[in-house]
């Protein structure tokens, strides 16, 4: 608020400066959080990598930090995370985009006003509840359908996670499509386009940066999701791409190890931070990318 500054009393008030300092200090807490996260992750991770070579960590196919002899190959955990993320994306992206196109192009304003918040309640369900659902409903259902899945398996975790992420994709994509100017649609209709053509060849391409951002954000959330994979996917770090088997995701390893009583400073304790740092870097790159894309579509149309 710069224009009003000249209107204020010319006398300097100490109370006003104190207030500004207190407000600024509160704002610093969020900066301190980021610094704290970086320090908390990377200092122990650095110590970890003095004991275990980065190459062994990133290329090793055997993850058994709690056994003798210990192996610290992170590939099984990364494979587990990638597989569950791929399944979740295969569900969330097409279905979320479909829901977004319906909400933006087909639903009446009243229908949208009701349907969008109702759809977003899916995102408000705690992830532990989705984990419960995957374990006690979806896995038995898959077996009834004749798919031979283990009790813990990547498939049901991924499917449920996909549904959980549908509102993430739908909401952000719908926002982007809503920002596409009416003129573009009217122009296409004037040229004789059908509603399908307007939706798929005009609105979706015009909103593409927002849609891609929603996809990236969904992937990032899938990679960082913990409870569904911990409860329903298992804690078995085997390098497999068979979704019917149990596996272990990075987040599940962190949670399972963190819950135990590993002694501070031990190599087992440090693995939490090495895997956590890997997770943090992966999601940060995706988040920064998504935030930039969102800013781009806002700049173009708003």
């Amino acid at each position: 608020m710069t224009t009003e500054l000249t209107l204020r009393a010319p006398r300097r008030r100490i109370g006003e400066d104190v207030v500004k300092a207190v407000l600024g200090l509160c704002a610093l807490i969020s900066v301190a959080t980021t610094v704290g996260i970086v320090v908390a992750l990377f200092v122990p991770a650095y110590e970890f990598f003095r004991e275990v070579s980065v190459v062994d960590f990133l290329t090793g196919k055997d993850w058994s930090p709690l056994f003798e002899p210990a192996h610290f190959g992170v590939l099984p955990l990364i494979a587990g995370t990638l597989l569950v993320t791929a399944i979740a994306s295969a569900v969330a992206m097409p279905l979320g985009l479909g829901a977004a196109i319906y909400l933006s192009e087909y639903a009446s304003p009243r229908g949208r006003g009701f349907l969008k918040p109702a759809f977003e309640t899916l995102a408000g369900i705690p992830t532990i509840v989705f984990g419960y659902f995957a374990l006690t409903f979806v896995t038995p259902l898959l077996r009834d359908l004749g798919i031979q899945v283990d009790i813990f398996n990547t498939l049901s975790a991924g499917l449920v996670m996909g549904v959980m992420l549908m509102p993430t994709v739908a909401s952000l994509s719908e926002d982007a499509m809503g920002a596409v100017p009416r003129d573009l649609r009217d122009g296409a209709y004037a040229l004789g386009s059908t509603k399908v053509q307007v939706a798929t060849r005009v609105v979706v391409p015009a909103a593409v940066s927002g849609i891609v951002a929603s996809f990236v954000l969904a992937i990032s959330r899938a990679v960082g999701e913990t409870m569904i994979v911990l409860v329903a996917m298992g804690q078995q770090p085997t390098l497999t791409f068979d979704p019917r088997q149990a596996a272990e995701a990075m987040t599940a390893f962190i949670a399972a190890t963190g819950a135990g009583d590993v002694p501070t400073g031990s190599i087992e304790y440090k693995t939490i931070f090495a895997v956590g740092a890997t997770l943090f870097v992966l999601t940060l790159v995706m988040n920064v990318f998504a935030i930039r894309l969102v800013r781009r579509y806002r700049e173009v149309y708003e």
Partner: protein
Amino acid sequence: MSRGLTGRLFKGVLIVSLSIGFLTLAVLLVTVLRDGLPYLDLTLLTSPPSSDPSIAGARPAIIATLYIGVLLLLFVVPIGVFTAIYLEEYADRSRWYNKLLEINIQNLAAVPSIVYGILGLAFLVRGLGLGRVLLAGAMILTLLVLPTVIIAAREAIRSVPDSIRQGGYALGATQWQVVARQVLPAAIPGIATGSILALSRAIGETAPLIMIGAVTYISFDPTILGPFTALPIQIYSFLRLPQAEFKLLAAASIIVLLAILLTLNAFAILIRNRYRRTW
């Protein structure tokens, strides 16, 4: 294929997409109610957990979740609102450090919750030596939902029109007087709604509390500086036990959790509709 048919097919596919979300939500709720309702009784609400499912309850977890909720609001509302006031009313947006602050808050909002758990484990539990206590859990959940509160409070403050501020200055008010007596009161409904939604997100969070060490057997009522478990953690603990009855107890606990969240969300919607102002 005729144009009309393509159009109808396309619309049908879109409706199916949307319906899969709603259908899953419905099946999930029905499953939880079917499994959990028989176990939803006073024993669940008033008894501690036990190895015997017929007398096991979630009382310590429910109490801890209420404590965490109150502490969280006490921490997160002032910090979040003050940060929002700073960014909206005081910060010079062209300065690099204020831009950095905004980007930082956006990024923090997307950091996986388990990473906050690692932060809590490293700094609060082990670093500060606070131990695996309820206060540490409340503090880490505060940091987790702080960006949500800041973003909601900023939007509420931004929606207060400038004419209100100018009116205050014209009457000789200082900047803080304008903020505290004009802008903030007008922004309260938006801030309250955002805070309640943040609270309901925090109450449903499990992963960071696992890292803090809340997965323990607690048979007594928790205190702020003592060991604790929380409702989502109790659900996780029930799910890990082999007997089938505990899965049903987990479902009953989920009903309690969802009931709390539903109440909070209804409250948020009520405030939004009751006090919404158009300038």
